[in-house]
């Protein structure tokens, strides 16, 4: 049974790492209601698994595994009809301001769009890469070899470069 101390420890750690949850929710759900549901589901699964967290891996590695597993499962369940929502709803609430930051916002939006177009597993891989996780950590989280991680990242980056060059 989880003690009160355990719960406090959990809440403290999640608070420190909650950006991970936000990023994953934003990457896997375009609809804000789905995002809220996914965030809740991730929190629940993290809480459920927390008793088994033994420190064998870093807390963030453990958290990425749980959060990405939940996000992929959630995404596969709710994917039907989502494409329509994706087109109708902007990625984030980026206003189309005519400022110096307009170019940056356009690029962020494009990056989010490209990441969103990736398959579930490739998306997880790229999120981890962009979060500056080492190849060995990415391999550990995903359950594939480091060589595979390197090959796939290079392939996806080439595709992204191509897509960015097309919008310029």
């Amino acid at each position, binding site marked *: 049974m989880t003690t009160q101390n355990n719960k406090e420890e959990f809440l403290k750690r999640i608070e420190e790492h909650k950006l991970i949850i936000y990023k994953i929710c934003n990457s896997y759900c375009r609809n804000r209601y789905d995002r809220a549901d996914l965030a*809740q589901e991730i929190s629940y699964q993290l*809480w459920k698994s927390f008793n088994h967290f033994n420190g064998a891996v870093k807390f963030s590695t453990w958290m990425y595994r749980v959060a990405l597993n939940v996000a992929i499962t959630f995404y596969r369940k709710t994917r039907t009809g989502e494409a329509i929502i994706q087109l109708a709803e902007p990625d984030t609430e980026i206003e189309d301001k005519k400022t110096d930051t307009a170019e940056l916002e356009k690029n962020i939006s494009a990056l989010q769009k490209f990441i969103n177009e990736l398959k579930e597993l490739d998306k997880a891989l790229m999120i981890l890469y962009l979060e500056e996780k080492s190849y060995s950590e990415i391999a550990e989280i995903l359950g594939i070899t480091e060589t*595979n991680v390197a090959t796939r990242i290079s392939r996806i980056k080439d595709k992204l470069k191509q897509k960015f060059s097309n919008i310029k």
Partner: protein
Amino acid sequence: MEDITLKDLWKAQDEKLDRSMKLNLYLLESMQKQKAESKLNSLARFKGWAVVLGILWVAFLGLLIYGNQLQNLYFTVSVGAIMLFNIAAVIIYIKHIAIIKSLDYSQSITGTQEKLSKLQTSTFNLRFLLLQTPFYTSFFWSGEMISGMGPKFWLISVPITLLFTLLAIWLYRNLTLENMNKKWVRGLINSTPEHTSVFKAMDFLKEIEEFKKG
């Protein structure tokens, strides 16, 4: 686009992330109660009931064989075969329940997703049950019946059993994941309520395989 720029863009989006979703972390206990009714739990419960019914059915068949005391070889062999098929099905269902109970989201992503997808396609693992159908057409045979029916037995009963045998073997060999591209296989799966999740799971299993290959 350079590598550094991709990572910079990713960092820059931090400020623009949708943080409106609230993490109701203080309601974890009540969430736990609600989630006890999750899909996986209901699947485990469904399979649990199937195991109970399967065991009762096997016990009933066992009683029939015991009651017959080997008086009729056709009955004993047919019911014995049906019993073995059902024992195997019960074992597979118990394995499924063990997989559901062992699912751990903190394990590697490909490993966990593979387990989940395999669970969804597990219907195919039970297709061997089709092979028991011919025995339902032979359990009532007896020496008296064969001699009493005369040629009718060879012209009606035996062909029916043979037809069921051939059909069952053919279905068993063709109703496979590899044959999912065939129209009639998809048609059969389409007639089951869980067909959409089965198709999705199969596609995803292929994706996982490719992902692991690199």
